[in-house]
């Protein structure tokens, strides 16, 4: 049964809406006006802040989905399934933003929208894995089995997350590693100055808060869908 808290929007969530908006606006302002212009790459480097932040939220969301999946298998409770699928959807959107912003940056820096670099490959594999997750869910009628299979596939799929994260650190790649040290052959590497670090940290914060807000809304939506389905069946007398 959906709990009563579902029907009313919690005031904390309402507050989060405004906080996210404020943080995102502030982060955007910082990216364009506070962070200095990078000497070699120029304005396009500014995409870096959102690129990294989106990638971060995407990966965390996928991991969260897998953790919810583990909890579901141990203790089958609908709410973990609802959370898991919400996290996957959020993760997919953020990872897509990550890939698109990366592409925009790659065009002037690497001279191509796309290249088959280990990082780009692993990131797209991660995206495809979780698209397959949605397809899997879609093709199973029984909600309990759907939840169980979803949980297992999200756990299997989450293996692509560390692989994506580590890809620029273990393989030879042209993708820069700004945090930590990367391949000397990477193209587009740069050293961050103090304001750049601040801007990055702030956009990480903004994206995370925004991500949590979206996740919360999506979880609530999942609950409401559940509720509607139950009421529908009640009315139909099943």
């Amino acid at each position, binding site marked *: 049964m959906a709990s009563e808290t579902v029907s009313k929007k919690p005031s904390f969530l309402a507050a989060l809406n405004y906080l996210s908006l404020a943080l995102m606006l502030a982060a955007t302002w910082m990216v364009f006006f506070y962070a200095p212009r990078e000497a070699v790459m120029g304005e396009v480097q500014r995409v870096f802040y959102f690129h990294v932040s989106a990638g971060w939220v995407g990966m965390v969301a996928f991991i969260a989905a897998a953790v919810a999946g583990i909890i579901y298998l141990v203790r089958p409770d609908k709410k973990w399934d609802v959370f898991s699928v919400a996290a996957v959807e959020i993760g997919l959107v953020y990872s897509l933003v990550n890939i698109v912003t990366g592409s925009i940056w790659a065009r002037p820096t690497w001279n191509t929208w796309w290249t088959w670099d280990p990082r780009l490959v692993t990131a797209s594999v991660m995206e495809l894995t979780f698209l397959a997750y949605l397809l899997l869910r879609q093709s199973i*009628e*029984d*909600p*309990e089995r759907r939840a169980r299979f979803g949980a297992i596939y999200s756990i299997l799929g989450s293996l692509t997350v560390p692989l994506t994260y580590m890809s620029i650190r273990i393989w030879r790649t042209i993708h820069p590693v700004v945090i930590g040290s990367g391949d000397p052959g990477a193209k587009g590497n740069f050293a961050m100055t103090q304001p750049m670090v601040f801007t990055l940290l702030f956009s990480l914060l903004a994206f995370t808060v925004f991500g949590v807000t979206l996740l919360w809304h999506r979880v609530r939506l999942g609950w409401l869908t559940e509720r509607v*389905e*139950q009421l529908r*069946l009640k009315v139909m*007398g*099943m």
Partner: protein
Amino acid sequence: MISTQGLSKRFGYRWVLKDVDLDAQAGEIVALLGPNGAGKSTLLRILATLSKPTLGECQIAGFSLPQQAAAARARIGFLAHQPLLYEDLSAEQNLAFYARLYRIKRPAARVTELLRLFDLHLRRQEPVRIFSRGMQQRLALARVLLHNPRVLLLDEPHSGLDRAALDVLDSLLRKLAKKGTTILFATHDLHRAQSLARKVYVLAEGRLVAPSDGRRRIPGSFSGVYSRALRAAQKGA
């Protein structure tokens, strides 16, 4: 030997079984009557450990489900709708394979014995694919009995059988019951239920609607009770 308390099963948002209290002693033959879609198969699948109840308790052959399902399996023989056989394998290969899974001692002798019992011995080498419905059903019954289960759960065991096979099956079931085997079988054939079972449960829309008959013989007017119970169930739902 079989007992359930408040057994309920939900598929998705729909309850297919609701508060089923059922009880069968050792050596008892119990019939489970009900129209198609009443939940008979679901109930048997739960008792056979293939499915887990959403709510409620159930004990079978001295084990509680679903916690001790793995241990209970060795004592249960379950005949499903489908024969649960490999169509490309021969009758003999199918039984030999299951004999290996059930770790039966002297498997070859046991397989031959059952093939003879169900009159399949002459065609033991032929693939199940070319068997008629009745032959598949007989082979499926042989598979169920392979490991001498203490509890038999049979989902419409009579379907597809010809007269001779029906008689063989019924006398076999009576003999097994005398030896202490608990038998619960689902059917929608009222007469079959009456002639074979000492106790009858009626399931409609997932609920047991006719009270169990206790130890008494089923009265001749049972069909009236049955149809009234069904009507009541349909009205109540």
